[in-house]
């Protein structure tokens, strides 16, 4: 029987906000790992074997065992790699609170955000309103805190961080996060001061360029 390969590998795609969550978590914990960029139009055998159910990135492979779904991966990283920081607090209520808001980001932000990206101009106004509502809810939760985790950068910050690169593109679609949710925008700038976030996120202009390209191909065609 083959011995499972030791070490940590991340199967990912450069632009994926879900993959970025894992990169941030691994960086926060100072875990050494091998990054493997997947071609989503031609998925590798390794990806298909490691995530046979969804066939999606990100997948974390640790000592030969694969873990899928970004927030599940982040919690796994927190539990397995002690590091200097904790991604989740130790108190059960605080943990459930963090999970609730990370789940909120999953349920609401990606769905509505990507609808915005794909929508025709007629639908934009309504979607903008809906998205602003979602962002304002998050902003209320953030309040005056430095991070969603209060003083500690944690699960919810990691869950939402990748979407801050999309803010510039939202502006182009008529939604100014800075104007509508100034505290959230300030938090977005603050988290970029963390090395784990700065090196995992892409330039907002790069996201915007890709958005324009995809829009030309699929929406305006």
């Amino acid at each position, binding site marked *: 029987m083959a011995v499972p390969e030791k070490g940590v590998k991340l199967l990912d795609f450069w632009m994926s906000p879900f993959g970025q969550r894992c990169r941030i978590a691994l960086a926060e914990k100072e875990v050494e790992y091998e990054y493997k960029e997947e071609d989503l139009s031609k998925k590798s055998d390794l990806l298909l074997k490691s995530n046979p159910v969804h066939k999606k990135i990100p997948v974390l492979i*640790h000592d030969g*065992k694969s*873990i899928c779904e970004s927030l*599940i991966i982040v*919690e796994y990283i927190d539990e*397995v790699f002690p590091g200097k920081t904790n991604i989740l607090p130790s108190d059960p209520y605080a*943990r459930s*609170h963090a999970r609730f808001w990370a789940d909120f980001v999953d349920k609401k932000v990606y769905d509505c955000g990507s609808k915005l990206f794909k929508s025709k101009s007629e639908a934009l106004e309504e979607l903008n309103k809906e998205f602003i509502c979602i962002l304002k809810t998050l902003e209320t939760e953030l309040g005056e805190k430095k991070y969603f985790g209060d003083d500690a950068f944690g699960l919810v910050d990691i869950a939402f961080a990748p979407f801050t690169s999309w803010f510039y593109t939202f502006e182009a679609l008529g939604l100014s996060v800075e104007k509508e949710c100034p505290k959230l925008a300030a938090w977005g700038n603050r988290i970029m001061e963390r090395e784990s976030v700065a090196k995992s996120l892409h330039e907002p202009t790069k996201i915007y360029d890709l958005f324009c390209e995809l829009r030309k191909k699929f929406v305006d065609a």
Partner: protein
Amino acid sequence: MDEEVKLLGSWLSPMSRRVEVGLKLKGVSFEFSDLDVFFSKPPELLQYNPVHKKIPVLIHHGKPIAESLIILEYIDETWADSGIRLLPKDPYERAMARFWAKFFDDKCSLPLAMSCWTEGDKQQQILADCKLNLTTMEGALKGKKFFGGDEIGIVDIIVFCSVYWTEIAQEVVGVNVINEEKHPILCKWMKETVDSNVLKDYMPPREKLFCHIQTYKDAIAALMAVRFGSN
């Protein structure tokens, strides 16, 4: 010891039942507030879950926790030394339990709930989704007695509640969603789980649920159509 544990739920909801089961398996005493959420959102619910406005909500020492899977993890962590483990100790096995719980909730819960309350092409599509996704869930059993291994765990609890409800609803409306032919492994697991532990005792009585669904089936169908639409 009164730890001020209150559950806002509904005897009619399998999501709410999951949490009741979790609390009972841990031997936690709690006050159950059976809310009528069918036609309206009671003020207590809006107060404790303003974001999603849904049951179940667990209130412990006055602090609310919402979303059934999150509540179950909270219960497991808070009463860690009581009753059974809802999630495994090993981090990889925990990740797998979370993965399958999420898969079930994302891909099976709603189709199962909707399967009895739609018609025509939409129903056929939902039934096809149910079949495919339940077959995938069967893969998670992989020769194990329970989803949790030798003992039941969080995945067993959530799947059991949904399957219990679906089996009754399908009898009321005369639709075949789950059967031995389509899902032999799942049905074997269901029988095993019913025979070997207390989960069935924590479900609402079959006749009571059957009668209720039968009496209100038109209203349930209408509500499902409004809530989940035709997308």
